[in-house]
């Protein structure tokens, strides 16, 4: 169904973890809503190193454009209590950049991420995602259109792995590639390479991850989320349960995605990771909640 080659990662050099510090400190992390012109922050799709954001950045425009998004949960089992989440949310995301959603717990970061993925529905506004030649408004798209959007363009790395009984870690990771039409053999090989890079002991690969530790499950989940190529990646705290060494591996993987032109929107509570990979922060508290 998709025409992409399923190459989640650049082939060989990518299999060597890039652990070099990327010297991003000088950029600083500026809180902004993203409505301003950010053309000077966009990297070339093939990636410039060291946070240098050159002119001549891609002219294709944003891959994600959120405008006027509002959401209130209505709890019918609690006498219709209304829980406002966000209103008037608006920002843009460009290929090759990584943007953090910032703000305190409960500000609506995860909810906003889930709305972009189409997991939570929105009450108002638009979430426009560029899908090849088309633009899809997640806020109004038919379920089937969302299914194809997720299959080809938009990936989501959740905080926790949803364990499927009896399915091995290796199969869990390989599944998105197989869905892209990559042969099972190649998909399993690439899944193994990625798990090895994430330091998941090989003796665990053939086991279902149900009994794995939190950190092991999270690495399986990250591998599953990153193995296939999706131009837009949503990440909810991808390093929450990881030790320092594995955080560095994930930082390297995210850098590679950016160099491949992938746009990343995520929640990164870990300051080290955020400073290493994020080009800017969108403060969700700016999207004032109006009940």
């Amino acid at each position: 169904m998709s025409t992409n080659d399923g190459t989640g990662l650049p082939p060989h050099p990518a299999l060597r973890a890039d652990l070099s510090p990327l010297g991003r400190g000088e950029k600083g992390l500026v809180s902004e809503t993203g409505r301003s012109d950010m053309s000077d922050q966009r990297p070339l799709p093939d990636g410039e190193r060291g946070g240098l954001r050159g002119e001549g950045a891609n002219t294709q425009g944003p891959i994600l454009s959120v405008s006027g998004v509002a959401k209130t949960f209505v709890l019918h089992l609690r006498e219709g209590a209304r829980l406002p989440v966000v209103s008037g949310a608006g920002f843009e995301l460009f290929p090759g950049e990584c943007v953090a959603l910032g703000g305190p717990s409960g500000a609506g970061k995860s909810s906003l991420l889930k709305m972009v993925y189409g997991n939570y529905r929105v009450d108002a506004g638009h979430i426009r995602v560029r899908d090849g030649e088309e633009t899809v408004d997640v806020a109004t798209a038919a379920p089937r259109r969302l299914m194809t959007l997720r299959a080809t363009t938009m990936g989501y790395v959740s905080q926790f792995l949803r364990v499927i009984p009896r399915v091995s870690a290796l199969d869990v990771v390989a599944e998105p590639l197989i869905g892209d039409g990559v042969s099972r053999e190649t998909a399993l090989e690439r899944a193994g390479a990625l798990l090895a890079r994430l330091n998941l002991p090989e003796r665990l690969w053939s086991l279902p991850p149900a009994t794995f530790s939190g950190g092991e499950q999270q690495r399986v989940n990250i591998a599953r989320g990153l193995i296939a190529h999706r131009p837009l990646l949503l990440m909810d705290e991808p390093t929450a349960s990881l030790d320092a060494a594995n955080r560095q591996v994930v930082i390297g993987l995210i850098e590679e995605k950016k160099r491949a032109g992938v746009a990343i929107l995520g929640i990164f509570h870990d300051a080290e990771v955020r400073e290493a990979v994020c080009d800017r922060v969108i403060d969700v508290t700016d999207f004032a909640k109006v009940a």
Partner: protein
Amino acid sequence: MTDGMSTDAPLLVAQGLGKTYGARIGCRDVSLDIYPGEVLAVVGESGSGKSTLLGLLSTELAASTGRVSYRMRDGVLRDLASLGAAERRLLMRTDWGFVRQNPADGLRMAVSAGGNVGERLMAVGWRHYGNIRTEATDWLGRVEIAADRIDDDPRAFSGGMRQRLQIARNLVTKPRLVFMDEPTGGLDVSVQARLLDLIRGLVSELGLAVVIVTHDLAVARLLSHRMVVMRHGRVIETGLTDQVLDDPREPYTQLLVSSVLAA
């Protein structure tokens, strides 16, 4: 997906379907489309009309109102009411499958396991005994039934094995659409997990379209792409499965989702 058919064309289209049992309403004004390769879960509590809906979609029940159309292998969408009884029976035996909650309702209990599978092949014109037996053995293997059980009849099988045999019997003719009515109901949890994994694998491998009725939201989440929530015979909420389960809108759907015990 198969046969070069566009996945943009629905396989089955229901419009304004309704069924009344005397004064009692089984199901009313249900319209939905099912596309090649997608799994649609129909959820709701007992008596919500989900099994009635499955009966109407599969034409086992006659609709009081509305109609069901199906895209035949020649690509033409036909009103199922316009098919003759023989044509409809052929469709049921070849292009469709129906996996029932109680395997005894979907199997011939006094016929061997191999015979149960082979019978569907004979219905589509297979005649060579050796080929039928080879194909049946292959399918028993795919549903994890040992080849040396081929001559045993399903009365000697456990509940989980019977259900797997029923799946083999249904899938051997490579149907494009399979109806499932609580396929894991009444099985032990460990047996359920094995069956779900098997169904999940076969559905994606064969590109099957499935309508699955279940009251188990975890089963729906694991297997389905889209979901329909029924109450009092009506569809009250639809959407992507994860949308409906993670952000339910209707009071009744919120009640359903919040009533599940997290294990």
